[in-house]
Structure formats: structure tokens, C-alpha cells
């Protein structure tokens, strides 16, 4: 069969997917770009061309800077904690002990729990009047009075990060565990015979096998954390006093609560650009890690 016909046939088979993707992703993205240069409202006026006004207005607003800092904190702390706890859990699950298979099965549960259910569950746990966290801590005499964990700017973001970590560290653990099981036994045995201690065995024997898969998990989790909306919306709506507002929530407020489609679009594209830069930088890092690991 000729190569041209193969290629033509491949394009024909891809056509339905590509048409749908252009309709639901390509066109909206292009239209967001167009809107970002207008003062369009969500309903009604189509808007006039205003050049880069929206961009300069958004980039210089204190709201944007503050939200960017909040989102970065959320992403860095929660992803770092998920990676560390995830790898530790994987190292544990890679040991032999009774009940290991059951414990490994349990790890699926937080991952499978819908994000909104997870957010609701933690919101109930943190409840200032009846929450389980307050009850447990007072009954253990660790705190004297019930606190409003999600209602105070000092604790709200930390409380969100704990909830996010609980849901996402098991995924990192499962990915790391799969990588650990690919480490040939004779290599670890040889390192042991050669007198390598636990730390050196982890650093020089096991880590090279983990590096590739963990980098991919790191990239995916960071991008997700940077786009975060659901868990924050359900638990705090970005409050109190905007202390947990993420970039996605800021865009939502601008475009849908205040109905400013034009400036909301420009903000959305700024966020998109940030995520893209992050992803490209990471992709370069992944390639480097993959190159040095083998």
C-alpha cells in the first residue's frame, strides 16, 4: 500500500476528532484571544477594540499579584508535600509485610473520591462549631477552644493544602511504587553486599529508577495545582478576605461574577501563558532527567 494513501487514510480517520477539538477547544481559545482585546461584557454588548488595556490593567492590579503569590504557595507546598509523602508511602509499600496488598488497594480510595466530595468532607471536618478536627484536638487537650480553621486567613490556606495532599499523595505513591518494583532485585542485593547504607542505596541505586516517573508526576501535579479551582471553590470560595483565592477563581470572578468578559479573557490567557511556560520548562527538565537516568 502506498505511503500517500496511508497518510490520507490516517487523516480521514482522525478527522472527526480534529473537527470536534477545533469546535470545542480551538475556536474558543481563538475567541478568548479576540475577546481579551475588547471591553466585551458576558451578556449583551459585543465590545470595542481596546488594544492591550485589559492586559496592562490586570497585570498591574494588586489582586493579580496577590493571587499569583497565593496560587504559587498552594502549588509549591502541596506538590512538594505530595511528592515526599508519596515516595515515603511507596518505599513502605515496597517492603514485605502482612496486609500489604490490602493497604495498596486502599491507596486507590482517596484518588477515586470525587474532588468535590473530598472538599466537602474536609469542610465538614474543619467545621468551626461541630467539626471533627476541633473535637479531636480539644478532647486531646491540644487546643482549648474550637477554631474556625477555614474562616481565618492564617490557617485557611494550610487547611486547604492538607485536604489537597490527602487526596493526591496516593497517586504519587502508586506511580512511585510501580517504578520501585521495576528495580532489579540483584542490583539492590549487590549494593547491600558492597556495604551501601540505606541512604546511599536510595540515592544511587533506587532514585535513578524513580526519577523519570516522578518527574512526570511532578509535572502533571504542578500543572493541576496551578489551575486549581474545585477544591478551593467548595471549601472557601477564595476567602476569608481573599486569602485562598487562586488564579482560576480570580478569572471566574472577573468573567462571570462581574461579567467582564474582555478583562476576564485577558486574565485567563495570562494564566494559560504561565502554565505553558511552566510545562515547557518542566518538559526540558524531564528530558534531561530521562537522559541522565539511563
Amino acid at each position, binding site marked *: 500500500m502506498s505511503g500517500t494513501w496511508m497518510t490520507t487514510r490516517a487523516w480521514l480517520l*482522525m478527522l472527526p*476528532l*480534529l473537527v*470536534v477539538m477545533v469546535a470545542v477547544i480551538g475556536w474558543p481559545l481563538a475567541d478568548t484571544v479576540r475577546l481579551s482585546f475588547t471591553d466585551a461584557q458576558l451578556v449583551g454588548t459585543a465590545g470595542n477594540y481596546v488594544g492591550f488595556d485589559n492586559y496592562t490593567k490586570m497585570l498591574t492590579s494588586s489582586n493579580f499579584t496577590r493571587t499569583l503569590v497565593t496560587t504559587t504557595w498552594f502549588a509549591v507546598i502541596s506538590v512538594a508535600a505530595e511528592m515526599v509523602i508519596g515516595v515515603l508511602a511507596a518505599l513502605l509499600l515496597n517492603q514485605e*509485610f502482612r496486609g500489604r496488598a490490602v493497604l495498596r488497594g486502599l491507596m486507590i480510595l482517596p484518588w477515586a473520591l*470525587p474532588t468535590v466530595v473530598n472538599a466537602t*468532607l474536609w469542610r465538614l471536618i474543619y467545621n468551626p462549631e461541630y467539626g*471533627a478536627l476541633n473535637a479531636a484536638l480539644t478532647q486531646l487537650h491540644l487546643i482549648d477552644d474550637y477554631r474556625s480553621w477555614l474562616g481565618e486567613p492564617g490557617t485557611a490556606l494550610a487547611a486547604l493544602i492538607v485536604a489537597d495532599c*490527602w487526596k493526591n499523595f496516593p497517586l504519587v505513591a502508586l506511580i512511585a511504587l510501580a517504578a520501585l518494583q521495576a528495580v532489579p532485585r540483584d542490583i539492590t542485593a549487590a549494593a547491600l553486599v558492597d556495604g551501601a547504607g540505606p541512604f546511599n542505596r536510595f540515592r544511587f541505586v533506587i532514585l535513578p529508577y524513580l526519577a523519570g516517573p516522578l518527574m512526570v508526576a511532578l509535572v502533571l501535579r504542578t500543572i493541576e495545582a496551578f489551575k486549581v479551582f474545585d477544591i478551593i471553590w467548595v471549601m472557601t470560595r477564595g476567602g476569608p478576605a481573599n486569602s485562598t483565592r487562586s488564579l482560576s477563581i480570580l478569572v471566574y470572578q472577573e468573567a462571570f461574577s462581574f461579567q467582564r468578559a474582555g478583562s476576564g479573557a485577558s486574565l485567563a490567557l495570562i494564566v494559560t501563558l504561565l*502554565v505553558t511556560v511552566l510545562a515547557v520548562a518542566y518538559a526540558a527538565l524531564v528530558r534531561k532527567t530521562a537522559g541522565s537516568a539511563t
Partner: protein
Amino acid sequence: MERRSPVFTVFIYACALLLAAVILAPLAWLFVMSISPAADLAAKPLRWWPQAADFSRYAQLLSRAENSAGAAFTSSLRNSLEVAGMATLAAVVLAVPAGWAVSRTPSVGWSLSMVIATYMLPPVALSVPLYMGLSWLGLLNNVFGLALIYLTILAPFTTWLMKSGFDSIPREIEAAAMIDGAGLLQTWRIITLPLAAPVVATSALFAVLLAWDEFFYALLFTSDQRAKTLTVAIADLAGGRVSDYGLIATAGVLAALPPVLIGLVMQRALISGLTSGGVKG
């Protein structure tokens, strides 16, 4: 075999217990809240185990009496099932031919890479035009409209899974059938699709999980019982002035059951699906 000191063994079991407790405690509490009488949940000091288990909230949420909490819940359950079902079916129908094409003709692979790269896009970057478009089509607050939008998430993911699935089916088997005179459709029907059935099933289940979990678009594009999905209904409950926290917990348990069951049944396939992408990069 590595020798293990008794101290180390005790340490391992202690860590395993801690990990199990961390995973299970919040989930167990969600269930306990759902069966505790409201008075127990408001008691100080808090009662950690109900005096008498009370399953009435499950009956209440699953009843279809008009204007009750049950009516809102069951309609959102139905909407979630419909949207997830339609979006998954459409995503698989688009993904199978496209995934096969990229697998067998790598020269068109760059177009799939572009489709997958859209994963980076935050949904907010598409939401305003999608809102205006759906409004123009009269598909706001409509399960068909929402299912269509869900393809932005489901289709790239399923196509990528299908492509790696077809990659593991040797072309030689297909070539043999073709030499024997079978056309493309016949080869698919007799050879390729039966071999790819497990991958199709895995992709479909992943798609169902993604659709079931989706919240942002559902929040934006639905407004009442005709199209509101479970995630939006639960967020409404959590953010509203519901005085019985047990009812919110019950809704959470019911919404979590299908994906948790899928997760447990599909454990092996899910993990290999999650990691194959990870290993290949």
C-alpha cells in the same frame, strides 16, 4: 533476601498502621456522619460513634418526593449518569479511529500531540466563548450541551490511551488478515477491535471517572434540576444553609460510591494506565 531486624519489622508495621489510619479515618468519618443522628453530630464533646445507626438519610436522598432534598439529589444523579454516559460514548467513538490512525501512521502523530497539549489549558481559558456559544445554541443548562463540552477533557485523554493500546497490538496480525483479502473494516471487526477490547473498556472507565468528577464547567453551564450534576448539587449542599451535616455526608457517600467501586475493580488496569504514560513520558 534482605535480613530484617525485629526493630525494623515493628517500625514497618507501625508505619503501615499509620498510613492505613491516615487513609481510612476521613473516609470512615464521612460514613459515620451519614448514619449519626443530628443530635450526636452537634454534641459536645462530639460523639464519635452513633448510639443507634440511622440510615434514614439514604432513603430521604433517594426518594423522589417533589420539592424534597431527594428530588434535587436524584435528578442530579440522573443528570450525572446521562452526561457521563453520553460524553464517554462520544469520546470513545472519536478516539478509536483516531488512536488507531496515529498508532499505525506515526507521521500524523503531531496532530495528536497538539490535541494532548491542550491538557495544559486551564478551563477558564475556554469558558467565556463556550458560555457564549452554548447560550447562542440554546444549550445552556442542558445535558447535551454539557456532554459536548466534556469532550474537551475526555477526548484527548481517551485518544492517548487508545493509541498506546493499539501500539501493543502487532501490525503483523492486521497485515496477515489484509493479505488474506479482508478490507479495513473487516480487519477491525475480526482482529483489531476484539484484541483492543480491554483497552477500550479501560479508556471508557477513565472517561466516566473524569466526567463524574467534573465540576467547573457544570457549575458555569447548568442552573437547575434539568441539568445540574452531582458535583454541583453537593457543592450547593455544602455551601448552603443545610443544618443537618449528616445529609451532606450522605450525599457525599452516594456520589463517591460509583467511582470508588470502579477504582477498586479496575485497580490493576488503572495503575498500569497511570504509569504507562509516566514511564514512556
